[in-house]
């Protein structure tokens, strides 16, 4: 499965992001950011399904919470940054 990871500055920020998405009908789960994408150490992100990213970014921009980074997680577990 391919997923997108919306990188968040903190756990609380990730929780808020997930709640906003949930209210908009977009499922997102808060997970610890994989170490390879968490350059400053101990980060959090919200994982959303591949087909939901566009809607998710629209909701977050509308709420003034546009993410700084988004990563694509391939089926093989490889992460690549995509434009946020």
């Amino acid at each position: 499965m391919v997923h997108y990871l919306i990188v968040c500055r903190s756990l609380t920020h990730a929780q808020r992001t997930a709640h906003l998405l949930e209210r908009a009908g977009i499922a997102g789960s808060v997970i610890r950011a994989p170490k390879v994408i968490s350059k400053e150490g101990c980060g959090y992100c919200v994982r959303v399904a591949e087909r939901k990213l566009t809607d998710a970014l629209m909701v977050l921009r509308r709420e003034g919470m546009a993410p700084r980074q988004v990563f694509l997680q391939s089926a093989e577990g490889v992460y690549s940054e995509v434009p946020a």
Partner: protein
Amino acid sequence: MIYLDSAATTLEKPRSVPAAAAWAMTRMASPGRGGHPASVLAADTMYRCRELAAELFGVDDPEQVILTSNATHGLNIAIHSLVRPGAAVLISGYEHNAVTRPLYARPDVKVKIAAGPLFDGDGVYEVFRRELTAEVDVVICNHVSNVFGFVQPVERIAALCKERGVPLIVDASQSAGVLPVDMKQWGAAFVAMPGHKGLYGPQGTGLLLCGAETRPLLCGGTGSQSRRQEMPDFLPDRLEAGTQNVCGAVGLLAGMRFVKEKGIGRIHAYEIRLAGRLMDRLSAIPGVTVYRGADQSGVCSVTVDRMDCEEVGAALGRRGVAVRAGLHCSPLAHRTAGTEESGTVRFSVSAFNTAWQMDRAAEIVRQIVTQGKGAR
């Protein structure tokens, strides 16, 4: 026991509060310190606590809600953030040591006191209007006096601060859960409150609502940006170093749910009714002076002729009535009201007290006063 010391701590809690705190003790780990279910459960509950606090107290973003150990902790962070050495701070005449001591401890801070008359909101506002001069950097005011239950005109003082561009710190220790507290409407820089009084949470909990730039009082692990040695520059992590009081926060969440369900307006109306009943009965006792006014919450103070307030408090305690006597950690409030030498005996109610308890407590006061020194 008739417990009338809720201005210190509400002792009787909704049943859900101790149950939730005990449940969390063995099921919730540290939020933000792991991805396992026990950590996630704790994190989720902490977030719900912030979210409900934001809803109850007019905060846009749950990230602005900081979980503290008590109101004193929150006030210290607020003062540390805004009051720099050499600053001039204007405070009300009814502030607690939680405000005056941190100010006293800061070097070269000039403290101006807006000592308005007791139970005279217009008078207090006028003093603030006069004393809020160009030299003032920060204003600090409590919403309700912990000694007299005097509801200060915080809305008007907040508007004045906004108009003059001076940040305001509000101590909502006696009002959170009892009176409307609206961070956004006030435009306050910070609002601090305890969790263990009107929000019915456990001791060791509190909230700080942040609307201004912050400076951490405590540095350490936050579960975020671990490689960096500076504290994170975002809330709540910036102000929440170290393992948090998860059990306390879970209890506080249960307490706030009780307040929301019951309704702040209803709680306030009930407490006012109880306190009014108590004051009516105490006022009828010869030798008892009741400090009573129009703008008053469910807290009241009394003095008894020719009896030391501590003797009265102790005599009440022996007869099963829990009150607090003395200066209530607020010598400034007593100085402003003219009771610094005598101190007072303070009665304070909660949503769990009853009318019968008011009558009984007043009757016991009558017995103590009638018997005088023989009661000891």
